[in-house]
């Protein structure tokens, strides 16, 4: 099968890791997979093509309108690949009526001028099928396809037992960070704030804490100008906790970077929790040599990560749970390893690729 992905790839955001994985895996499985566009020096292993007619299917991976190419390329693309051979993977749930959750929402009319009907009519016009990375799409005409997956070959340290993992984890000198969150300041601050406020009274129990991502050191002017909340930041709180901030990590550095921390929280945007949308990070954190703290709704964790992963949800008393992990790390590493096995069995990229080709085959 010849598959052309259409999306705006940037090395520090959105689905770049996932798409590059599909390209790599597709080639291994004997498919021809490329990304629409000119070859890029910063993604040398990813084949790009504008030879639209050479492909059987176009898979649009859409977060925002910029994921669609501009003129004249979009016209060439749509003229040369018929609608029944195009699908859209709607990563942010825009193919729904407007939904607002806390400060978050699926349609940012103030930012892009597009209201819900435009997204719905636009997507319906482009593709024969709309897929969303959730187990529970709201619309009948949406197909559930999780898209993102787990890559067992990317696991930094594939421990044979929880004892081995716990021993390595407890060794001094190996982890420069106690807590590290890699992700951008976009609709996550409310949850991070709760996280930091919970550990603030016990600050002396933790070593270095770091935030890696875009705009953790300031609230962007345009957010204030447009009255957009959800990318706030409380610098005083971060300072009290000694939290260090740094810019975005490149997609191929994330797993290694997270392995430098004892704990890595996993947050989804409020909207994503509401819609059950998963992301690359839902799975990727389990590749790192760290204990993921799943700051996610129980039902999502149980359905996606499996029942063992419920132990990795800190619950109401975050500090108590962190204390418990530090006291008996084997118990929690057992959950991590079981979850890795579950993800490998149910959410591998091989499995995703099969699911996608089945969808494309109709």
């Amino acid at each position, binding site marked *: 099968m010849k598959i052309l992905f259409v999306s705006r790839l940037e090395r520090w955001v959105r689905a770049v890791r996932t798409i590059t994985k599909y390209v790599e895996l597709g080639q291994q499985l004997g498919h021809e997979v490329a990304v629409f566009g000119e070859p890029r020096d910063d993604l040398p292993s990813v084949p790009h093509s504008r030879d639209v007619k050479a492909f059987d299917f176009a898979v649009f991976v859409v977060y925002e*309108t910029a994921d*669609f190419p*501009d*003129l*004249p*390329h*979009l*016209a*060439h693309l*749509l*003229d040369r690949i018929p*609608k029944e051979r195009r699908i859209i993977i709607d990563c942010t749930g825009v193919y729904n009526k407007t939904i607002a959750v806390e400060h978050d929402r699926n349609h940012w009319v103030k930012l*892009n*001028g*597009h*209201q819900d*009907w*435009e*997204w719905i*009519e*636009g997507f319906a*016009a*482009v593709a024969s099928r709309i897929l969303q990375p959730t187990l529970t799409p709201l619309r009948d005409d949406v197909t559930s396809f999780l898209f993102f997956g787990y890559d067992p070959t990317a696991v930094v340290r594939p421990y044979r037992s929880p004892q081995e993992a716990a021993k390595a984890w407890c060794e001094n000198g190996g982890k420069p960070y106690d807590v590290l969150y890699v992700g951008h300041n976009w609709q996550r601050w409310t949850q991070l704030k709760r996280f930091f406020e919970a550990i603030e009274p016990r600050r002396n129990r933790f070593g270095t804490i770091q935030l890696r991502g875009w705009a953790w050191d300031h609230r962007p002017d345009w957010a204030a100008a447009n009255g957009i909340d959800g990318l706030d930041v409380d610098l005083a709180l971060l300072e009290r906790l000694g939290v260090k901030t740094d810019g975005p990590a490149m997609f191929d550095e994330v797993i290694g970077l997270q392995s430098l921390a004892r704990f890595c929280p996993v947050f989804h945007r409020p909207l994503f929790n509401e819609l059950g949308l998963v992301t690359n990070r839902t799975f990727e954190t389990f590749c790192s040599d760290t204990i993921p703290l799943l700051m996610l709704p129980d039902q999502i964790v149980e359905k996606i990560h499996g029942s063992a992963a419920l132990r990795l949800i800190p619950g109401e008393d975050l500090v108590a749970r962190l204390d418990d992990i530090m006291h008996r790390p084997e118990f929690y590493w057992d959950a991590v390893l079981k979850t890795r096995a579950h993800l490998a069995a149910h959410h591998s990229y091989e499995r995703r690729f099969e699911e996608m080709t089945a969808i494309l085959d109709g």
Partner: protein
Amino acid sequence: MNILFMMDKRANAGSIQAVACYIRAGDEFSHNIALYGRPDPKYPGIRWSTELGAFDRVVLIVEEHINWLSGLPLIRLLSEVPRERRAILDTDGMYNPVLTVDMYDRNHADENGRACWVGRCAALADKILQPTLEPLEAEALPVPFYGYDPSLRVAPGARGKRFDIMHVGHNWWRWREVSSCLLPAIESIRPKLDGICFVGLWWDMVPGWVRDQNLELAIDLDSEQFRRLKIEVQQAVRFTEVVPVMSEGRVNIMTQRPLFRRLKLLTAKYFEIFCADTIPLVMLDPVHAESIYGPLGRELALHGNIAHRLLDAIESPTKYHEHVEKVRCHLATHHSYRNRVQELVRVLND
């Protein structure tokens, strides 16, 4: 025929007046004409639609830039309207070779800019229309497009005259002609004139982004000269107010950017000014003025001794009003939007 226009709509500029006129005239022929979008109170008289598939043709009204057509509307257009049902109206002559007029006005900054523009448009449609009777490029189809709508007329005396001379139009590639021809002429007769008013964007100050965008030539201004000549400046008005505002002047002057004059591109202003209760004087070549307005167009062309003609119009208005009335009859016969709708339908059907 059902025709949907798509454009970068602006209430105080561009072709929005023409679209409103097409909608009205189309109704007389049972053509359903609308503008892409959702109802917006800033645009009275516009019929809106987002049902791209419900129209026989989509006409993209493209000015200097086409980057407004992006995102979801572009996606829907390309997906729902087959290429052969799309057409582009090139209002600014961008489809022509790179042209520079008097080392001043130009359609493209360079060949690369033209190639980019043409590439985008070629991806959208085969049919390129230009609002001129004499296109330079054989591939461009001549469609006058803009026209005269008598229903816009302001009755004589309905608006009090606040100014002797008015100029309604934006400070956009006009400064060289205004500063070198029009203002010196006005200066020479200023003591004999009452109020003078320029209405439009950027006559009060040059915006800060001009330098960033390398547009110093396009928007230039000598505010001191305006002060010395006691020229009042008013902000741009909504399209529905253009004709009424023009009617506050005894004489209205129409200037046109040099590129448009070279290409003989028509604009809405060619005809709006004759709907106003005023004496229109047009800074056009007399032959071109005659080709549009009929024989008396020459009498209303501001060409040569501008000061003399201005003063003559102020001091002997009856003669000019008679000329204007005859031109209006000519326009109603030859340039009504009834004609325009039929011409457009014909071209789109070919």
